[in-house]
């Protein structure tokens, strides 16, 4: 695996406790990722479109994965999702909804906005951890996206 700095993840999460849970879940299983956190939807969009305090590209590396909570202050998760998926530049970034909401309605709306995946935060930490590990291995290790460079079959 490459250095974790090569695999920046944008976590859009307003709850610092959940942020910590996610960090620990990644860290404890030795799956280091560079977690950039946006506290609300507006901040996430600023980051992605490099606006406001994120104008500096150093501070806002293009994420390989966006982890998106739905209920956010100001601009909510679905709006962020819509913006990302309607931007020709950003839509290739896998965007995974990670929320406490088990509502069918939210699931349907997230799918309608082309979310790449929809995950519900598990209550037990063991399962939380397992989920983060799967997430890391699938989206950050196995999954390939434009810009990775094609590997020729030998």
């Amino acid at each position, binding site marked *: 695996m490459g250095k974790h700095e090569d695999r920046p993840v944008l976590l859009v999460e307003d*709850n610092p406790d959940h942020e910590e849970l996610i960090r*620990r879940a990644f860290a*404890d299983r030795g799956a280091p990722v560079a977690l950039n956190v946006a506290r609300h939807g507006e901040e996430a969009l600023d980051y992605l479109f490099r606006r406001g305090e994120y104008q500096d590209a150093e501070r806002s590396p293009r994420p390989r994965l966006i982890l998106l909570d739905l*209920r956010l*202050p100001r601009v909510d998760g679905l709006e962020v999702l819509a913006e990302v998926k309607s931007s020709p530049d950003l839509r290739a970034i896998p965007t995974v909804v990670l929320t406490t*909401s088990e509502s069918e309605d939210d699931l349907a709306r997230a799918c309608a906005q082309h979310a790449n995946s929809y995950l519900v935060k598990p*209550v*037990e*930490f*063991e399962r939380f951890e397992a989920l983060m590990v799967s997430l890391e291995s699938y989206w950050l290790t196995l999954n390939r996206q434009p810009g990775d460079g094609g590997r020729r079959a030998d």
Partner: protein
Amino acid sequence: MIAGARSLRTRLALALATIVAVVLLVNAALLMLSARQRLRERLETSASLFASLATGPVCSAYDAYFESGSFKFRQVVRDLLVTAPDVTRLEIVDVEGRVLFDSAHLEGVPDPAAPGRRLDPVRLEAARRLEPTRIRGRGAEGDTLEIVSPWVEDWGRHRLSVVHHVSFAKLNAEYRRYARVTLALTALSILVAAGVGLVLARRLTRPLAGLTEGAREIAQGRFGRRLDVHTGDELETLAKAFNEMAERLEATRTERERLIGELERRNAELERFTYTVSHDLRSPLVTVRGFVDLLEKDVAAAAPERVAADLARIRGATSTMEKLLRELLELSRVGRVMNPPERVSLDELARQATALLHGRLRAAGVRVEIGPGLPFVTGDRLRLLEVFQNLIENAVKFRSGQGEPVVEVGSRPGPDGPVVYVRDNGVGIDPRYHDRVFGLFERLDPRVEGTGVGLALVKRIVEVHGGQVWVESEGAGHGSTFCFSLPVAP
């Protein structure tokens, strides 16, 4: 329905035509009978007159000329008969019953029976009388009338009588003509009556057709339909009643739709509420469970500073949960558990809220100015106090870092009575979020403490009191003005 209207019209027209026909036919029959009577009477009168006038000249001419100058006599008879077209035949008889002359054989053809022909007893009896006698009978051609009138000579001798044969042929012909004309006119009248009846019936039933049409439209749910009937009769009354019914139906439907809309709104609100609550209560639960599991690991790993951090997060999440539950309970009590409404001075409430928040205001260095003219309203004093408390608290939370924070409470005239406002010079709210700030658990800034219930509570309290609440702000850095309107106390 159309068929019914038509048959009603036809029935009306038929009834009218039948009545007219019966009346006209009876009338015609009476007319014809009386005409026949009159014609006969006139005929008989004129025949009698003729008989009384002609008998003398005929008999004296017979006496004078029959034996000597038959031609002259015949001339006299012929001339007389011409003047009375209905008297077709004259016979001169003597009181012995002998027929002396018969005008049937006037034109030279001798009567073969004349010399020996004698009168029958009835006519003989009549011929002997000194008064004229009418003899009615029936012959092959209908009724017959003979008038037997005596010739009484100047000195009183009665020797001869004249039998006048009166013919009804002309009368009958005239009567038939009259009857034909009468019947034709009657038939024409009946036809005209039927036509007029049809037109009248159509005119009478046209508003009915309108009523039917309107009733059908209403039955199909188009309550906006009104009938325009100005016949000035029962139909107009019916149409008016009909319009009233339609109006009431429309009002009922509008009211029902309003209630359904209200119910749907409430339902959606409740759904949103349930969803929000389950989501937001799950969130601290994830935190608690997550850090309990982590705590175990950290204890096992003997990392005391981590243990302390985990415990702090668990404590924080449980107190958030406790607070959420308490505020939810509070929110659900609004409208359900109310203090009896009373006349409340908003000025007094604003001052009371300021006094209650005194500590926080002083700590944050916020100055509250209460303007004059705050209205009196009717409502739950404690709830309305919460409105001010929450709005002022909100202003304190979102004060900007620059300048002296000031909260201004006042009122200004609005379209539906006075508008009360709580204005701050704080961070302001982007117009995009003006609707969302009142949503349950909505928080615009995660760095500012709070659960996002305060403004939802304000909205609920104001709405339960029949008022409205909204926010005015030109955006970040321009401060915010929270406004609400309540029905003013009388």
